[in-house]
């Protein structure tokens, strides 16, 4: 029979009422809290009705080698009132008692509120705001990328997955900070009117945490991993490397912090060493992921398809690929016997698929360039078409815009032709159902070539 048990604590740091109830239920079921860390450790004991009290003390810290004088004094007062110290976690102190007559640890609302808010300002609130700012900045960068090129963003499962993860984390931190400040506002109002400091209890805490965890796991399983596998093994390795790397970093920092605490190193030294270590390891992990990202690009270019290296007359080496392109120049017109490269790159997400085809010969640089974009919903299709059609100003000098063209020639539902400063180019957008094809020719295609292009690139749309 197991003597100890470790569980995740589902409640937030500031939800004292939920934590007290949870611990009392555990004690009633024969498990007494013994230690708090990443997991909360319980020891088997006789089932009993035990009262728990969660309080917050601003001087307490995970970095203190031992409780400060003032914390010891508070613990002594608690002991005198019949409360036994159980465990500490950051600024949270947990006490328990079996005595019915022990007074509550906090008996005056205003004093309790002030003590809690002081403790929250020490760690929970600043770290919450810093993390929110970091994740928020990351999310803003991701959304900026989406604003620049929506189809590319929507069809990159790795990037979309990362953006969704950031969104979940931002939601999480916004909700816990808002929840705290709403509670603080109500509590302040209550104590100003001579009332009690209300306990912080959230009936939805577990549901919210479960939802967030399930959403994060779903993003990883159904978006991140399949997309990473499609891009190439390098991407999946990067993901695993990042997960393992940050997990390793967390464990190392915990171990070093614990070791320094045991050696009696001061809280400030311990804090500086831990933060320095986090920076060094974090930079190492980022460096490693960049290294892997470079490998990804190499893998994507090689793609595992049949390739050969070709030396051009300019003295450079080019990789010639033989990817299966849905449309080749030779389908449209005869081509010279030159070293052609056929390159097809796929970007996938559960929302969209983007296939980029490129046929090129590196001597005269003749080429055929197109992308086939399929999106899952009408709403996203309309947003992406707007993105394709948006007028652009290049360097404030050239004006790129699309105007409607004859769609029947292509067998499409709609067609648009690009013009630069009013001059028509050989770049078209072809739309059918929820597919958008963007194609650039090196020549102006004939009606027969247009029909064949539409037949090949719009097939299955």
């Amino acid at each position, binding site marked *: 029979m197991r003597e100890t048990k470790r569980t995740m604590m589902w409640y937030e740091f500031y939800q004292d009422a939920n934590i007290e109830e949870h611990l009392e239920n555990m004690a009633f079921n024969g498990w007494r809290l013994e230690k708090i860390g990443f997991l909360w450790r319980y020891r088997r004991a006789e089932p009993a009705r035990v009262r728990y009290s969660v*309080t917050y003390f601003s001087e307490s810290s995970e970095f203190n080698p031992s409780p400060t*004088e*003032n914390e*010891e*004094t*508070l613990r*002594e*007062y*608690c002991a*005198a*009132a019949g*409360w036994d110290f159980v465990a500490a976690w950051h600024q949270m102190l947990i006490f328990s008692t079996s005595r019915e007559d022990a*007074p*509550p*640890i*906090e*008996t*005056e609302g*205003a*004093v*309790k509120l*002030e*003590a809690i808010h002081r403790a929250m300002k020490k760690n929970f609130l600043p770290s919450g705001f810093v993390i929110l700012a970091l994740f928020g900045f990351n999310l803003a960068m991701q959304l900026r990328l989406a604003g620049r090129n929506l189809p590319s963003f929507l069809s990159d499962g790795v990037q979309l997955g990362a953006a969704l993860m950031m969104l979940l984390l931002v939601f999480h931190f916004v909700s816990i900070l808002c929840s705290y400040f709403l509670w603080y506002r109500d509590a302040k109002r209550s104590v100003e009117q001579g009332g009690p400091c209300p306990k912080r209890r959230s009936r939805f805490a577990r549901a919210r945490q479960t939802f967030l965890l399930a959403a994060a796991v779903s993003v990883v399983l159904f978006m991140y991993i399949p997309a990473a596998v499609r891009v190439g093994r390098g991407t999946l390795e990067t993901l695993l490397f990042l997960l393992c790397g940050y997990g390793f970093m967390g464990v190392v920092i915990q171990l070093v912090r614990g070791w320094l605490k045991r050696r009696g190193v001061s809280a400030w030294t311990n804090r500086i060493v831990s933060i320095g270590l986090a920076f060094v390891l974090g930079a190492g992990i980022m460096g490693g992921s960049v290294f892997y990202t470079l490998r990804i690009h190499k893998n994507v270019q090689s793609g595992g398809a049949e390739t050969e290296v070709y030396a051009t007359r300019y003295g450079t080496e080019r990789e010639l690929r033989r990817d299966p392109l849905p449309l080749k120049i030779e389908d449209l017109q005869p081509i010279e016997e030159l070293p052609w490269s056929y390159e097809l790159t796929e970007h996938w997400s559960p929302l969209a698929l983007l296939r980029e085809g490129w046929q090129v010969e590196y001597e005269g640089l003749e080429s055929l360039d197109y992308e086939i974009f399929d999106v899952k919903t009408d709403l996203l299709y309309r947003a992406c078409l707007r993105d394709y059609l948006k007028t652009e100003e290049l360097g404030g000098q050239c004006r790129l815009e699309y105007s409607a063209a004859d769609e029947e020639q292509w067998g499409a539902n709609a067609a648009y032709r690009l013009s630069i400063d009013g001059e028509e180019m050989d770049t078209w957008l072809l739309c059918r159902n929820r597919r958008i094809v963007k194609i650039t020719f090196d020549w102006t295609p004939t009606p027969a070539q247009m029909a064949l292009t539409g037949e090949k690139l719009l097939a299955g749309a």
Partner: protein
Amino acid sequence: MAREKFQTLTEQMFYILLSLREELCGADVMARVAELTGGRVMIGPGTLYNLLESFLNAEMIVETAAEGRRRSYRITTAGEQALLTEANRMETLLADYRRHGTGGGRA
């Protein structure tokens, strides 16, 4: 700021100051207040700790002895003044109550 904070005293503040008219160790204040009030007023250890810190900062009490972590306190003149002000305030309340008659409230 501290004076503004203690312009009126809560019941628990009042009895902590009252109990410190004799030198007491912090932990003994809880028992002394319970004794003074016949168990009517109970002070929790967290509240006691925070109020003693606030009274010290406001110089309403002073530390008189420290043996290890066992620190003793006693009320100061400022603390006595706060007690007196609070007592006068309560007397005014009581006088007002009596002047306007007792038992005359509407049901």
